[in-house]
């Protein structure tokens, strides 16, 4: 459930923490290498000549001389293996290369877009957590009607496609009520609809997981004993069971952030927000290999960081993990 934890041994051994860190770093490096390699080869399987992408995109009428020149300049005339090793070499030194289409350094391009997407994803994750917690706490252990209703809401929201939800939200809150702008222009009000669009389906997923584990926890003896001590039903939920209920959802948050980044492709396009999602979509269409590789690596890096983070947070939330590494 918490990656990395099986390797854990009690923290009194100092070396164990070191070993754990080492393993994490090695794991992260492996993931990044695998992602870079997969991207490198996968993108060559789709039709489209990189030299053409550099010279004005598909359908360009670049001359043979220009194509040859570009192939030489970008090393595209080299064997695939040589190109692959060259790419790895550049990545190791932190060089993401230059965009074929925009002729600007990939690192600069992504740097300019990362903030917007991270803000969007983080706000959506936070809102999804709030919605999910509220729903789970409200609908658990209150009889069949509340439970069925809660479950219905969860399944429905989890199944909502982003593009549909966005269209409905725009129709209601922009075109209908006129409260919020349909196109995000960098103002806080422009962020509301995109964040809600991303958060609602995710909240459905999270609430489902939370409610199950909340139900499970409610059966535990310590809950009965707390109730016996005179704790109210709500008090038990807030003070005793939330932590337990939250555990699987915390582990899921790593996955959730990745899921949000892919949702950002749709949401950023619909709400016309600058960000990594739109950058990726554009880059794939243009066969802008350095940018595609850069975005994919960045997302992989975020995944890895989130996994570490959820691991740490799980340990804080669940004392058992700190003791024995057992679950």
């Amino acid at each position, binding site marked *: 459930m918490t990656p990395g934890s099986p390797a854990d041994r009690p923290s009194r051994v100092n070396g164990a923490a070191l070993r754990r860190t080492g393993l994490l770093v090695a794991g992260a490096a492996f993931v990044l290498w695998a992602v870079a390699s997969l991207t490198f080869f996968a993108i060559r399987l789709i039709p489209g000549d990189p030299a053409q992408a550099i010279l004005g995109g598909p359908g360009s009428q670049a001359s043979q001389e220009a194509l040859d020149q570009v192939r030489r300049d970008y090393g595209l005339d080299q064997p695939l293996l040589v190109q692959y090793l060259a790419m790895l070499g550049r990545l190791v030194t932190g060089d993401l290369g230059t965009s074929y*289409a925009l002729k600007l350094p990939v690192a600069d391009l992504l740097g300019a877009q990362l903030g917007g997407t991270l803000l969007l994803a983080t706000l959506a994750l936070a809102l999804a957590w709030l919605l999910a917690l509220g729903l789970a706490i409200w609908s658990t252990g209150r009889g069949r009607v509340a439970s069925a209703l809660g479950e219905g809401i969860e399944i429905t929201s989890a199944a909502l496609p982003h593009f549909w939800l966005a269209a409905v939200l725009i129709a209601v809150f922009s075109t209908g009520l006129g409260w919020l702008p349909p196109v995000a222009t960098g103002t806080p009000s422009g962020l509301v609809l995109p964040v809600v669009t991303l958060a609602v389906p995710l909240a459905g997923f999270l609430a489902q997981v939370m409610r199950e584990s909340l139900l499970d926890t409610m059966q535990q003896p310590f809950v009965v004993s707390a109730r016996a001590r005179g704790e109210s039903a709500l008090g038990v939920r807030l003070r005793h069971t939330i932590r337990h209920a939250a555990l699987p959802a915390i582990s899921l948050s790593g996955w959730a952030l990745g899921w949000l980044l892919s949702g950002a492709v749709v949401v950023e396009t619909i709400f*016309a927000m600058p960000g990594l999602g739109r950058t990726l979509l*554009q880059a794939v269409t243009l066969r802008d290999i350095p940018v595609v590789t850069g975005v994919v690596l960045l997302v992989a890096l975020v995944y890895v960081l989130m996994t570490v983070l959820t691991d740490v947070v799980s340990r804080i939330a669940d004392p058992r993990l700190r003791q024995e590494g057992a679950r």
Partner: protein
Amino acid sequence: MRAAPVTTSSTTRRFGAIGVALVATVTLAGCQAPAPEASGDPVQGGTLSYASGDAEPTCLDPHVGGNYPQALLAGQFLESLVSRDETGEIIPWLAESWTASDDGLAWEFTLRDDVAFTDGAPLDAEAVKVNVEHLKDPATQSSTGYLALGKVDRVEVVDEQVARFVLSSPDSALLESLTQPWTAIESPAGLARGMDENCQAPIGTGPFIVDEWVKQDHVSLVRNDDYASAPADAAHEGPAYLEAIDWRFVPDAASRYAALQAGQVDVIDNPQPDTISTAESNDSLVWLDAPRPGAANRIELNSGQAPFDDERVREAFIRAVEVDEGIESLFFGTAERSYSPLSSVESVAYSDEALFEPDLDRANALLDEAGWSERDADGYRVRDGARLTLRFPVSTNQSIPAEQSLFEQVQATAKAAGFDVVIELLDLSSWYGALAAHEYEIVSAPYTKVGPDVLRILYHSDSITPAPSGYFANLSQLNDPEVDALLSDAAATSDPEARAASYEKAQRLILGGYYLLPLYDQQNSFLMSTSVQGARALPTVSTPTFYDAWLAG
């Protein structure tokens, strides 16, 4: 010369190639759309907000590559030597007059002497020379502008204000080519900064100046207070009324329309046909309908290989499919059926409706005659064990949803005659890949260019030879020496009547050989709030200009 793609939505960026089209429409007899009447007195100041659904350019300099999204933006800050008015006449712009030598090999343009680039440098013959050299330099990676000036050998500076274009062979399309934004004149000092810097903010003589380009978000344009070079058909002189333009990139069509309805933006491009139809009943919105010049949207039949190397099979296909009802219902009456290879904007466009009269019996008879007399269990015709299959790669970047649905109707109606039309929805790179590999029997590829010379690009046998990238424009692979001769003659003659006669003869041959199924003009529409007054589309490549525009109360 080639044009510009467009995208329905997101992402495409510069595909310099063929044009794509998106939206447009046609009104009545298909003339250039009249600008909506301006009413009231012009108001100074204000920022106009424009939401573009076209791909965000990867470079703002239309010399580089050269596509429609670049043209849309460049029209606000760059200007050409000449322009074209609503009747198709070439009119003065940066050049106040021009003369051609008798042999058509030397053209002298006299430039206005009161115009300066926004970096302060004067517009002179040397600047024109530098621009043509820039376009012809392979390092510029120009595609559209490069092809447009293909017959220009060099430019000579006659004196400070007179530039002489020396041609390698006569070119009756030279003036039309020079009206296009892809051959606009930029500041030599701006060009000298190098491609990377010039792409971010090209320097021209236009009514607005590029202030800032925030990628994936917007381009800020501010007024050029020293502006003094309006084209001859402009409504006023001096600087623009608007203080600034906020040019946003909003790829999603529904979001664009919602932003217009909510008053968040004042103008949108590429509205979908159903949206136009809805907006028509909205009193606070105006529809600007500006079909693109060049070729009409059409389905090309690949005559270079079986089964369409047989004219009978081509005619059978054209007689079998029915598109009229589909165009009417899917485009909500915003697109008018075309029967010409050329856009209705072109005065020499020749139509022949009788050739495209659906006739299923005739289609069946022709196919029987051509040897496709048997049908398999699914009702498709077979010959020697092979099914009558037509591969139809469709670019999702170039064909709007309504057009894709229309192609499904083509598929359904062709089936009645026994054609197995296989539609493949592809992204732009894969689509070009399929064409380059000749993996198509039918295809639809929009193409924008000012003037009827587009016929030479699309139907002269020279255009079957692929560029090194595999791209070729003659997708019907029409290879007829008579058509070649007519198109070459038309391009070389300086006599307008002889030119028009040659183009008509060529169009008769092209249509009569059943090489294409014309559909409608390249759709190009804009929706504007009624508060926007005085905006119009330039009658060159139908890009909007906001020089005469103001925001009423």
